[in-house]
């Protein structure tokens, strides 16, 4: 059996006809397996959804309990027979509940073929989710968000150190940190606590729900507060010296004007490139990413032992070239509709101009 018989590219996304399911489909399908809860991967309206319990909880928090006709949880390491294939999930280290999808053909159909779809993943330690576990396979489908050798993420702790030093140096200014509301925000909170900072962290309204969900899953995040409502001239809502977390788009918008001479920060792997940071008017870029950097992409491909690599959403060309240089068979898989282009997830965009109470109409 050829890999292309097991997984096909369709307008709805990657489809496994033998198992009768799609992976992270872009439009409603009968049966979907979801890698993780980011809104470009996890959409509402599928007939049935298979994912980790954490991912299902995230989807329910975002879309309501009726986000799918039938939700089925599968723990990391457990396997399930679906049609003519076996499916298992392995931790991806991206956000809470994120999983790689392991698909195996059955011995009856000839030599067993194992394909792993990575979803989004990272290798750096993250206190908010299970660490990535490499799974040996024949075909590895890897993301390539940071698939250029210029993307090398520094240790996250040193970036947090940069933030805390700046807070100490500018105690009269508010540090507003743009971060994706799912995953990055909670990781930042955990990192700030790990760095020994116990001060209250203030949260934009768009982060509250998901942060509570992380806390319900046992993550201790210290003193988290809602931004005091009030007019922009109200001293209590100016929060000098505080760290405020908000969706990336909010740092530049009306919402940000309430704060005391704000220092605009952004936690993202894209901050590695100065022009990108400048373009967004960022004053304190923090290179902290939930995606694998170049070195980790290459290392992971090697560790899976895959002879064939499919490269999806991101900088496919460079990674395909690298694979070819290593003697691996590689092809770009032009999946549209996913991706971290440095902006917020699509559904978080309304935060742009609305934000919390007291913002401009």
């Amino acid at each position, binding site marked *: 059996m050829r890999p292309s018989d097991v997984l096909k590219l369709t307008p709805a996304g990657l489809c496994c006809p033998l198992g009768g399911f799609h992976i992270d489909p872009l439009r409603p399908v009968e049966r979907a397996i979801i890698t993780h809860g980011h809104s470009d991967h996890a959409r509402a309206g599928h007939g049935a959804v298979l994912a980790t319990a954490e991912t299902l909880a995230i989807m329910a928090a975002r879309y309501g309990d009726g986000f799918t006709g039938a939700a089925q949880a599968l723990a990391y390491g457990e396997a399930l027979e679906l049609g003519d294939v076996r499916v298992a999930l392995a931790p991806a280290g991206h956000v809470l509940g994120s999983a790689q999808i392991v698909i195996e053909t059955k011995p009856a159909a000839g030599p067993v073929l194992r394909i792993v779809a990575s979803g989004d993943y990272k290798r750096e330690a993250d206190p908010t989710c299970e660490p990535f576990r490499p799974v040996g396979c024949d075909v590895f489908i890897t993301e390539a968000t940071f698939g*250029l*050798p*210029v*993307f*090398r993420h*520094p240790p996250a702790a040193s970036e947090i150190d*940069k933030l805390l030093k*700046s807070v100490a*140096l*500018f105690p009269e200014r508010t540090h507003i940190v743009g971060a994706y509301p799912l995953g990055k925000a909670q990781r930042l909170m955990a990192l700030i606590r790990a760095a020994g900072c116990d001060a209250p962290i203030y949260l934009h309204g768009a982060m509250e729900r998901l942060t509570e969900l992380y806390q319900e899953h046992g993550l201790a995040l210290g003193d988290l507060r809602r931004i005091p409502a009030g007019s922009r001239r109200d001293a209590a809502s100016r929060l000098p010296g505080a760290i405020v977390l908000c969706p990336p788009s909010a*740092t*530049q*918008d*009306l919402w*940000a*004007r309430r704060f005391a*001479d704000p220092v*605009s920060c952004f936690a993202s792997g894209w901050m*590695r*490139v*100065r*022009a990108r*940071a*400048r*373009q*967004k*008017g*960022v*004053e*304190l*870029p923090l290179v902290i990413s939930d995606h694998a950097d170049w070195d980790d992409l290459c290392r992971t491909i090697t560790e899976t032992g895959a002879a064939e690599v499919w490269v999806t959403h991101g*900088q496919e*060309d*460079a990674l395909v*070239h*690298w694979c070819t*240089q290593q003697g691996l068979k590689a092809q770009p898989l032009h999946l549209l509709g996913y991706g971290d282009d440095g902006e917020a997830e699509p559904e978080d965009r309304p935060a742009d101009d609305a934000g919390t109470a007291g913002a401009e109409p």
Partner: protein
Amino acid sequence: MNRFAAFLDRLSYEAGRNAKIRLMVDYFRSVPDPERGYALAATTGALGFVHAKPGLIRQLIAERTDPVLFGLSYDYVGDLSETVALMWPAPAGAAEPGADHKQQPPPTLAEVVETLSAALKPDLPHLLARWLDGLDETGRWALLKLLTGNLRIGVSGRLAKTAVAQLGGLEPDAVEEVWHGLSPPYTELFAWAEGAGGRPEARDPAPFRPPMLSHALEEQDFDTLDPQAFCAEWKWDGIRVQASAGERADGRPVVRLYSRTGEDVARAFPDLAEAIAANSGFRGALDGELLVVRDGRVQSFNVLQQRLNRKTVTPKLVLEFPAHIRAYDLLVDGTEDLRALPFAARRARLEAFVSRLADPRIDLSPLVPFGSWHELGAARAEPAASGAGVDADAIEGCMLKRRDSPYLPGRPKGLWYKWKRDPYLVDAVLMYAQRGHGKRSSYYSDYTFGVWRTVDAATAARELVPVGKAYFGFTDQELLELDRFVRRNTVNRFGPVREVTHAADSGLVLEVAFEGLQASTRHKSGIAMRFPRISRVRWDKPPSEADDISLLERLLAGRISA
């Protein structure tokens, strides 16, 4: 070096002046000598060594990376130094745990600067590679920017000196006074600023004296100022320059041409500097305007600009753009410091000094006689008919100086005033807006504006063509209103830029003030504005009534042929 790099990195993103000073003070306080002194030298552009050429950097990275991957990366990042800094591979063996190969320790900034100043060109590739091996991404970026002489962190020499002054209770001007006698790593200067040592001796035979600056004259000032107490001069549209000349212990002359901010620009004007050095009558320091004078006639700023910022000064350039100083003050005569004397007394000394020089390249800025403010106002309106003659094109108003004013550094109150010629005005239409930086990063505060141009004479069809960009001139209240207008009238977004509705019957007219025009091939309109700012927001005016480009073209033609 990594500490210096983190400092540079943060500075490069910071827009606010005070925040920049705070970052520098913090750095100077927490980093020891000589490291901080070399950092100060780097930010003030005072480091001189063989600069690495981009070719060398390309060669080093080509030896270490795959050409396809480098190409894709460079395309994405768009900056050679940054691409190399990010892509530079970890030295072989460094990543393996327990490997014998010890990783290069990161160099200090002092090591880099001191090694480079003694290095020969052939040593560069090896040195550079060794240092890059030892540094992290930001460290490599800073090193490459330093080595290519291309820091661009938006810190002026003045700002850096202000930060040094703030280490103790010094005035920035006090630092300026001793600055030119000092050299990296400025150990004495830091000791003085921190109260651990005395004032460094001013050993420079031709030191910089911080210039005296003026205030803009405001309408109500005429009620309180007595015309009899003031002298008036033309305000020249050139470059403020302080020509300072002295002699070394061995008798060799030292000549410096300082800009207003204390940068020595003598290298760009060798014709002047050599003439001064050769003229033993010129020992001291005078304050004046640097101009280009051709056939006895002062040329406009546009002409002067063609001589500025040239990397190499050719004999042809010197011949075509002869540099000239129009003198208006004498600070030091021989070795006698005149700055405490009243203006009138200094003026008498200046007149004697200039006539003694007998150099056609250096002449006096004449006094403009007047009996009342009204009379001076008439002269300001018509300089050509009021004694300036053919030089009128290079005059941008009048200067008023109290007869009894000593020469004080900075901008003291009540002594000197500038009364500038009224700016040119044009009614233009707002076309695009972009967010500002720092405090203004949530505001659409940078405005691109255009005027009408006829595209088809037969149908009289017109289109708007952009002619400039302005980001100040409005009040905070007006900014709020402009920002709201942009948000509500956006018709298109291109990355950070918003296109704002601009048609004959819908849009916003901005009255733009500017100081002059230049022909420009870089702008679609063929025109570049000097110093444009928003002088009024014309909420009342429909865009169809904004000005036509022919107005600007006539103005440009007039200025060129005049």
